[in-house]
């Protein structure tokens, strides 16, 4: 997908545009830590995010979805590609090569919620300090005003402000995740990367946090990139979904299209594998032979071809491009137009 294909979408409606994003990590060995190869964790990701939407980013462990999320907000420095962000004041800006100082001005618009509510909060800080920190760093509030703002943020995420002098250990997993969300909201961000925000929580608590995220999105016009491996949760919360496999985007479409009529064989296998909470609908999974390819030593051509049941000769030779096969339905497969793939309903 290159930018010329985005003509159907009004640029003003977009918040983020990522082109050919790459993040490679060197493999270092020996005494002098010589680089002996690279792990291509993210290897050419193209996507765009609309204002106010939730874009689900799914894939199996090691596919680079977390790295992609972190690179997009420059928590990691990209190896290549462009990241364009639609700043509410400055308009479109390129993030990929931005210097520290400039980045500090953009950062308040982009926040992140982490997976593990136990390790993402400093155990030696009180809840008040944790939530106040972004406000202090950006010199937005101090004194009583700061206190009030923290209390308000805690109320917004459904916690009692009286608890703000406590330390994280005194809270349950769901409450800690709420604290993390309050911290992310402190600076009125536009974009929040939700990196597996509910996967460490029990089902009943998971529902509370998902509902909270949905409410906040409405109230504060937030845009989410929702990184997760739980496909049921992603279907519930996302407007559109991007599927990654070994560092590349293989499919990007609206949630319904992706779940009910996928265009990439890997998405099909994922959909067939989701355990449906209905004993009257038991279906056999699609067998994927072999293991997920290593991003340090990926196969030739389409990375998925050694495991794909539809693979033909061309698949091992040419890398398929992410193309628009139907309006706003992008897939990177040589046969995306020909294959009849089954969705989540089998």
């Amino acid at each position, binding site marked *: 997908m290159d930018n010329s294909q985005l003509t159907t979408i009004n640029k003003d409606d977009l918040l983020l545009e990522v082109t050919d994003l790459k993040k490679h990590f060197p493999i270092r060995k020996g005494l002098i830590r010589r680089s002996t190869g690279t792990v291509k964790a993210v290897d050419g990701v193209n996507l765009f995010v609309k204002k106010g939407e939730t874009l689900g980013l799914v894939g*199996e*462990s090691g596919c680079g979805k977390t790295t992609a999320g972190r690179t997009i907000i420059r928590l990691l420095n990209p190896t290549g590609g462009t990241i364009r962000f639609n700043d509410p004041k400055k308009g479109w800006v390129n993030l990929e090569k931005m210097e520290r100082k400039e980045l500090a001005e953009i950062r308040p618009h982009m926040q992140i919620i982490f997976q593990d509510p136990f390790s993402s909060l400093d155990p030696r800080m009180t809840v008040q300090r944790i939530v106040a920190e972004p406000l202090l760093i950006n010199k937005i509030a101090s004194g009583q005003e700061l206190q009030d703002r923290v209390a308000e943020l805690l109320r917004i995420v459904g916690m009692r402000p009286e608890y703000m002098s406590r330390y994280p250990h005194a809270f*349950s997993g*769901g409450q800690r995740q709420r604290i993390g969300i309050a911290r992310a909201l402190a600076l009125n961000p536009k974009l929040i990367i939700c990196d597996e925000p509910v996967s460490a929580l*029990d*089902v*009943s*608590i*998971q*529902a*509370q946090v*998902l*509902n909270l995220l*949905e409410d906040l999105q409405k109230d504060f016009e937030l845009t989410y990139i929702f990184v997760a*491996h739980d*496909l*049921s*949760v992603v*279907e*519930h919360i996302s407007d559109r979904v991007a599927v990654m496999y070994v560092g590349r985007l293989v499919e990007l479409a609206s949630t*319904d299209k992706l*779940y009910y009529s996928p265009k990439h064989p890997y998405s099909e*296998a*994922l959909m*067939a*594998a*989701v*355990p*449906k*909470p*209905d*004993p*009257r*609908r*038991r279906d*056999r*999974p699609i*067998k*994927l032979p*072999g*293991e*997920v390819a290593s991003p340090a030593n990926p196969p030739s051509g389409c990375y998925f071809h050694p495991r794909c049941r539809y693979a033909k000769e061309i698949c091992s030779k040419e890398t398929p491009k992410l193309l628009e096969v139907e309006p706003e339905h992008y897939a990177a497969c040589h046969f995306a137009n020909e294959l009849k793939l089954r*969705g*989540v*309903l089998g």
Partner: protein
Amino acid sequence: MNQTTESVKDKTGSIFEGEDIIIKVRDLHTYFFTDLGVARALNGVNFDIPRGKVMGVVGESGCGKSVTALSILRMVAKPGKIVKGDIQYFRRKFGPDGKEFNEAINLTKLEGMGPEMRSIRGAQMSMIFQEPMTSLNPSYTIGDQIMEAIILHQKVDNVEAEKRAVAILDGVGMANPKLIVKRYPHELSGGMRQRAMISLALSCTPAVLFADEPTTALDVTTEAQILDLMRELQKNINMTIVFITHNLGVVAQMCDYVSVMYLGRVVEQAPVDDIYYNPKHPYTSSLLRSIPHVGSGQKERLQPIRGVVPDPYSKIKGCPFHPRCDQAMRGLCDVKVPGVTMVDKGHSVRCFLHSDVEEESNGQ
């Protein structure tokens, strides 16, 4: 409700009429005596596990799912202790006349680390743990670990044990089993490690397999393959599986019967179809309403269960679920503990909405 009074009076009677029961748990209490106080992990667990079936045990963290399995296997370590209750294991045996019969063994009466329990554990009952990386020994090869179990329980030499280990690994769909036996756990991927773990658990073809969140740490496609494998193995050797998980999707796909646990008690036990289409306990229906139903096409709001699971140190008066229950009846649910009631064939529930039977062993 003649049936009701009967099932309550006759505490040892099975809720499954006509089913061959392999494990019968009655009024099981397992407590942990910690410095913070007594954690009542199991507070009177009652259930039956039918032979050759897959029984799901579901509930949120801290409800006692894993402790139930550990109690049955007699692996509860200090400061935990089984303080009360019975666990009957009906071992299938051949009599001198060649006829099959079930020998009843009360596992709570055996010494946890004694010779009888050790001959049962690993051979007739085994367990798959959630995290294959931490439950396999990192300093022994996969082959060594499987062979250890085989040699311990069967009279075979090293060569034969290795042959069997290779055969089992092959049976669980591991590519190149001859190479894998020489590998260490860290050399395998998550899915392969879980297959190795399953091989280890199956090495002596157990009658009962406890699987404690066996696929929680795995990716969906790998999870689907492991579930498929377990289903196949279960059919082929008519194994009984106790499948512990919090994932209601996995339960729907895998299980024949389901026990729903809350705060150390089984609040509902029923055939899988009834749990999803005709749940009786408010906790079961709330759990189902709180999860996104993939493929339903509905984008409606999830309905979380209000409040949180209370910590196991606290003592709740009345039904343990009443503070979170929308249908709680004042003056009843907050005072008395409901007893086990049969509502249908194979379907039992502990809730005053369905009967006014009280728990017998109330007040301890």
